[in-house]
């Protein structure tokens, strides 16, 4: 029966091609705009690591000024100090853990010759790779023992490996960074999470760094952060050591806590640590420790700009106008067909039958419009990606994925239904006799 309705609907659309093009085009515009805007927002709002985001927690401790809270929205520094990171990593409650920061160091293409390039390097611990599921092409991350020494080992991103070693397996080869030689232990596969979720303190749209180095090297090499560092008190001593013992916060601290019980235990541990530090005159503010799940942190840090949400609302209203338009046009079309319907009703077609047939026709318009709309939004996504590439040097941020395909399809079915119910109802109530008389 449905197939029969579909065939009739197709015939009806084919009969007046110009009119059909207008109604399908109208709904296509609506779906195109709605799915484009939703896709742009989705790029930032979606879970960047869906299978693990539930167990990844960001750690924050309020070591700020007694006079007033940290000026951000949450009122707590988004990062931790070096001394606190070092101390709280002595526990083994989290399955995996590590502080980290980014540095801007010289990587030498060929030791001794050629100009070096400044490169963003992620200073982190061995747990970084399994904790954030960094995918390896060759080799693996370093082990926890290498964090201690620290050992001169690094992991390369796929782009850096292409640049330095032409994409070959470079495990075991050496790379000079500043004035030291490092041994490559692993090379990552292309890794492009939608946002740089492990460090959303700034430039979240940047791709992950291309070199990863044990954080322990910061001391021997006197490496400073190139990210944000927030302080409220001058370091107690000048120079590099002063930064390390200061109240300045500049490290992102992450832990993996598999369940609620572990989370509670870890919170207790942090609470005890801060209480202990308070006795030594630190942490002058009311005690506050935060262990925040990734998605909540993204929300709090405003990773998705509110303008994008506003645009999604506007796009849905736009689609509503397109659907209303469709209602008007279909109503006109169906009622113009009244005599024919009268005849069909007189020949025995039931009201339900007539109603269903017209709803199917509306849905067909909705789905055809939806398909065309998806094509339109794909083209527009390409355009928007070009824009993002010019700004943030990555052309793959906005992706029309399965979720978005479902969203667009759902919207087009809904639009077809909402637009079609009234015209179909009107047309099925046409009394059989009136139009027969007129003929």
């Amino acid at each position, binding site marked *: 029966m449905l197939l029969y309705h579909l065939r009739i609907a197709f015939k009806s659309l084919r009969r007046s091609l110009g009119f059909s093009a207008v109604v399908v085009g109208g709904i296509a515009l609506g779906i195109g705009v709605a799915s484009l805007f939703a896709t742009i927002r989705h790029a930032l709002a979606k879970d960047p690591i869906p299978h693990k985001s539930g167990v990844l927690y960001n750690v924050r401790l309020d070591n700020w000024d007694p006079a007033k809270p940290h000026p951000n929205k949450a009122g707590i520094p988004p990062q931790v100090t070096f001394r606190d990171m070092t101390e709280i990593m002595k526990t083994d409650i989290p399955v995996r853990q590590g502080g980290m920061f980014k540095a801007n160091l010289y990587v030498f293409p060929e030791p001794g010759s050629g100009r070096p390039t400044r490169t963003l390097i992620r200073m982190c611990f061995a747990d970084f790779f399994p904790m954030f599921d960094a995918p390896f092409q060759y080799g693996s991350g370093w082990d926890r023992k290498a964090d201690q020494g620290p050992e001169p080992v690094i992991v390369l991103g796929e782009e850096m490996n292409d640049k330095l070693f032409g994409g070959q397996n470079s495990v075991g080869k050496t790379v000079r960074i500043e004035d030291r030689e490092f041994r490559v232990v692993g090379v990552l596969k292309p890794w492009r999470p939608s946002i740089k979720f492990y460090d959303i303190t700034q430039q979240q749209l940047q791709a992950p760094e291309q070199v990863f180095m044990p954080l322990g090297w910061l001391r021997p090499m006197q490496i400073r952060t190139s990210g944000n560092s927030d302080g409220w008190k001058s370091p107690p001593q000048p120079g590099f050591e002063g930064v390390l013992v200061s109240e300045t916060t500049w490290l992102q601290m992450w832990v993996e806590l598999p369940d609620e019980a572990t989370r509670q235990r870890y919170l207790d541990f942090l609470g005890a640590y801060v209480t202990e530090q308070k006795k030594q005159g630190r942490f002058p503010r009311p005690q506050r420790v935060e262990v925040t799940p990734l998605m909540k942190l993204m929300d709090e840090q405003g990773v998705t700009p509110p303008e994008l949400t506003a645009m999604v609302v506007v796009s849905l209203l736009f689609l509503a106008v397109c659907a209303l338009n469709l209602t008007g046009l279909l109503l006109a079309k169906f*009622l113009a067909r009244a005599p024919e319907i009268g005849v069909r009703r007189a020949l025995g077609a039931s009201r339900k039958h007539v109603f269903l047939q017209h709803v199917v026709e509306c849905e067909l318009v909705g789905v055809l419009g939806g398909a065309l709309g998806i094509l339109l939004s794909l083209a527009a996504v390409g355009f928007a990606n070009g*824009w993002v590439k010019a700004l943030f040097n990555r052309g793959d941020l906005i992706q029309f994925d399965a979720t978005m395909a479902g969203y667009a399809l759902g919207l087009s079915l809904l639009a077809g239904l909402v637009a079609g119910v009234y015209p179909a109802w009107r047309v099925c109530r046409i009394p059989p006799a009136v139009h027969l008389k007129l003929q």
Partner: protein
Amino acid sequence: MEMGPILRAMRRNKVRFGLIVTEVALTLAIVANCVAMIRDARAAMVRVSGFDDENLVNVRSTPFEKAFKEDGYLDNALDADLRSLRSMPGVRAATNTRFLPWQGGGSSTEMRPAGTKGEMLRTQIYNGDEGTLDALGVGLAEGRNFTREEVDRDTVRLRELGRNAREMGPDGLPREKFLQEVIITRAYGRLAFGDNPLLGQQLEDSDGDLYRVVGVIDHFYNPYGWPIHEYAVFFPNRARGYEFGSPFLIRTEPGQALAVAKAVEERLLAVNNGRNLRVQTMDEIKAQYFGPQRLVSTLMSTVTVLLVLVTSLGIVGLTSFSVAERTRQIGTRRALGARRRDVLQHFLAENWIVTTLGVAVGVVLAFALNFGLVTVVEGAKLRWPLLAAGVLLLWLAGLLSTLAPALRASRISPALATRNV
């Protein structure tokens, strides 16, 4: 004009006219809010920084030669760079400062009037040299500029200060206070000192170190993460180091920014090639900063245009249908003596009433939507003149969309009335 037939016709076609009313109302609500957002984004983009943005070039020099780790070498290299830049054809002024406008940030600190126990007031803070104001293209409103001697002297003093631990007093603050001359913006001066004269006033930071105001600039706007866009303090110092390199701002002769930006890398590498250089014109930096806003306003503009088009098409469709359906009635009216322009008027008036109803509902809807956008997502606030423009636009669109079908209706022959279908 006879309103009777129009109103009666409308009453008989409630749904059809209701559709147009709703469409027009929604369209007005969306268009007004979109345009408000676009205007907000545009306003931010044309906001004047106070600097000679079009003619600014930013150069960042980051050394990799070990020699740069030594202070004397670093200072000499910096001097050589500045000399070379200032004598470069097309360059009007060059400075060594960490201040770089249109980044959405910079560096900031807290100060308050010296000796008071008032609230600490956050301000942007940057180093400057004797050429900084000239390079930015801002004039002094009051007081004097930094002198070369001041910059050299404070560079050495600050370096000493950073090298040794400071002796702390019983209050946990450094025992000996450090005093520097500073140039501040009028906005920050007013925040700290109200309407009092600014020259000679002193500020203190959280360490109790002092800053004496020797100069005031009127125009300064640099968007920042905190609402301190117009607050700034410049202190004399050189910005240089092995890790962070040395940043320069160059102000070129009008229209020379691109040419200078192209030639500057080679020129500076000829001075010293133990470093890498990054060059950007301020136009490029601004384009990056405003990229997201520009994307939003492009998308919003597109939606606005499409929306008005879709709604107009809808009106054309419904009116055409209305005309087709009433062909016989129109023929009859014509046969009974109605003139062509009466028929034309009928449809235009009918549409005008519907559109007016639509915009009336639309005005309410626009404010409701705006209220939602402003409270939930910090959208732009809606203003009456803009809404009035929207109303006019929709009236016009409604009229134009009715014109073709109405003209067609007016050409219906009276003879039609006598024919059967």
